[in-house]
């Protein structure tokens, strides 16, 4: 693919609002995870909770969209003045030439989960204040962002579980290269809800302690929430990074377990390299999907080693943010671009002893160095795999 300019990007997660606190935490090895309850869910798990969601002021004309997920999206649009960059692009290209492609897994389903507690005692009807289309529906977050930014271009939500907000980069790149649009707002927004908290618990994939990706005694994931956005433009005077490739594949194996050899994951990594015209040796760092479940990390390790060998430095940053599910691809795209800009190879957190059966070059200490290209893996339920490849801005 033709390298595509990333002219701006931002993130809001448990590490804070915007690039600066995120980079500080990555440099310092500071986790944003806390052992806290969410809503009425007292599961004792560690969560990556975003601060400031409830206190946010809300536009009266968008009142129907008011929910945790869209509030999180709005925090993301305000962080690093991201929406100003979008408005500049809209002035340059026209609002109809800018797409909105966002990933989410559960959108604002929390609204409906809470509304089910308030069903009419006689009819069973949901309360009239539930705005399904604007909050719960899968598309609602892209609809909110498109409307809040006054954009008129094509838009959709990609919802392929935890690969969602990586795949939107590829989708936008195709439409820009084909000449259908000139720029796109891409990224992901996923907020805490009961479906994911109790669902991952039911699958016995939630760690009772803080998540420890790549650790020999890892016991599962810690769930987080986040909003991450990037602005992709046909050309840009001062790009912050370049999107070089977006590899995508399916496992075709199992709904909730990865292919044990990481075959689908490897296919996505190879495709990203091929699109970028790169060899594995050209990649300076891999941001792993690294959820911290025994099976996921083992499968990813095999996939990484089969493509890159044992030397390429890699780490998972889910020990900082938690697994932000549908937003994870976007969050880790931002981490990858921060790594490129700052020359930072972040350390994987919470490792006591690296699993000796894993063979890739996992970093437990942060490193500084000139990075040329960074790969970011995202894999989801349904066997959906994506690998993004970013290059440093000259």
């Amino acid at each position, binding site marked *: 693919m033709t390298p595509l300019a990333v002219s701006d990007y931002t993130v809001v997660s448990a590490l804070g609002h915007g690039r600066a606190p995120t980079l500080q935490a990555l440099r310092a090895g500071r986790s944003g995870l806390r052992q806290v309850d969410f809503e009425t869910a007292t599961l004792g798990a560690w969560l990556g909770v975003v601060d400031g969601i409830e206190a946010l002021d809300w536009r009266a004309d968008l009142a129907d969209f008011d929910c945790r997920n869209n509030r999180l999206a709005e925090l993301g649009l305000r962080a690093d003045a991201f929406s100003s960059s979008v408005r500049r692009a809209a002035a340059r290209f026209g609002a109809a030439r800018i797409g909105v492609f966002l990933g989410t897994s559960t959108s604002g389903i929390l609204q409906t989960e809470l509304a089910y507690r308030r069903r009419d005692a006689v009819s069973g009807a949901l309360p009239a204040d539930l705005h399904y289309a604007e909050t719960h529906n*899968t598309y609602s977050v892209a609809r909110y962002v498109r409307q809040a930014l006054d954009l008129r271009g094509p*838009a959709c939500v990609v919802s392929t579980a935890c690969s969602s907000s990586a795949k939107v980069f590829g*989708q936008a790149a195709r439409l820009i290269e084909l000449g259908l649009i000139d720029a796109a707002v891409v990224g992901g927004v996923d907020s805490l809800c009961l479906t994911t908290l109790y*669902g991952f618990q039911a699958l016995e994939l939630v760690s009772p302690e803080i998540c420890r990706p790549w650790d020999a005694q890892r016991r599962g994931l810690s769930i987080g929430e986040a909003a991450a956005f990037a602005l992709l433009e046909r050309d840009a005077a001062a790009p912050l990074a370049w999107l070089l490739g977006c590899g995508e594949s399916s496992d*075709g194996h199992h709904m909730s377990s990865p292919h044990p050899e990481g075959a689908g994951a490897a296919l996505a990594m190879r495709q990203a390299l091929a699109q970028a015209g790169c060899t594995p040796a050209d990649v300076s760092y891999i941001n792993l999907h690294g959820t911290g479940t025994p099976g996921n990390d083992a499968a990813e390790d095999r996939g990484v080693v089969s493509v890159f060998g044992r030397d390429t430095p890699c780490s998972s940053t889910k020990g900082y943010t938690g697994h932000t599910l549908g937003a994870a691809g976007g969050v880790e795209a931002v981490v990858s671009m921060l790594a490129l800009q700052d020359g930072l190879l972040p350390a994987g957190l919470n490792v006591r002893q690296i699993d000796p059966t894993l063979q890739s070059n996992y970093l437990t200490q942060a490193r500084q160095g000139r990075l040329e290209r960074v790969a970011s893996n995202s894999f989801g339920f*349904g066997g959906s795999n994506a690998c993004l490849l970013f290059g440093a801005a000259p």
Partner: protein
Amino acid sequence: MSAVSAVLDVGVAGIGLLGPGLVDWASALPLLRDPALWQRVPTVVPAPALLPATERRRAGIVVKASVVVADAACAAAGVAPASLATVFTSSTGDPANCHALCEALASAGRLVSPTRFTNSVHNVAAGYWHIATQSMQTSTSLAAFDASLAAGLLEAAAQCAYTLAPVLLVACDVPYLEPLHGVRPLADSFALAMVLLPQGGRRLHLALAGDAIATRCAHPGLETLRGQIPAARGLPLLQALAGPAAAALVLEGLPGMALAVQVDAA
């Protein structure tokens, strides 16, 4: 900066269809050509032969309907399913599963079934399809509320034109149970699938069409159906593909973002 949107050229090689009074593409052809012959009866979703018995038990209606039309489109196109990249589009995932989860989460025990949670992902139909066909090709699942059909067609055509490889498009919407049906009423289930080819097939030319008004179905009953289910927004295109003549139509998209489709003569 280009003032006029680019045009995507793709060819339709095989179609699968399932909807009210529309049992499959072959038997729907005369009905779409002369809708006076069409009688609206509730959609019957058959058990997909492609899914193994255990998967069939676990799969919701949205999975079954998607797999049935996808399988039919591949058979009609004469292509191996495992060779196709896929785009699945739906306004929501598995609605009955969503209702069951919300009920469980509102109950005192909050006991969630692991299978229900696994099946709650929007890409549930794509997951089952790729497992059943053992396809490792790329797959995306997307949503754009009532504009989901146009968004899916745009994405599938863009992938086909970009990769120069065939793409399977599957659009499917299934109604919620109450009480969610009360806040998102879809009248019935509707599913369509198309194998898109970079070369050959019945040629389509797609372009973004801004505020253009969506083409309506001339037949009042089909027009009602078109407006009732997101996937049925594709009916004007299906009617054009059912006949031999060239046609120009506009599919409903997001506000201010319709999708114009020119259909070449067969």
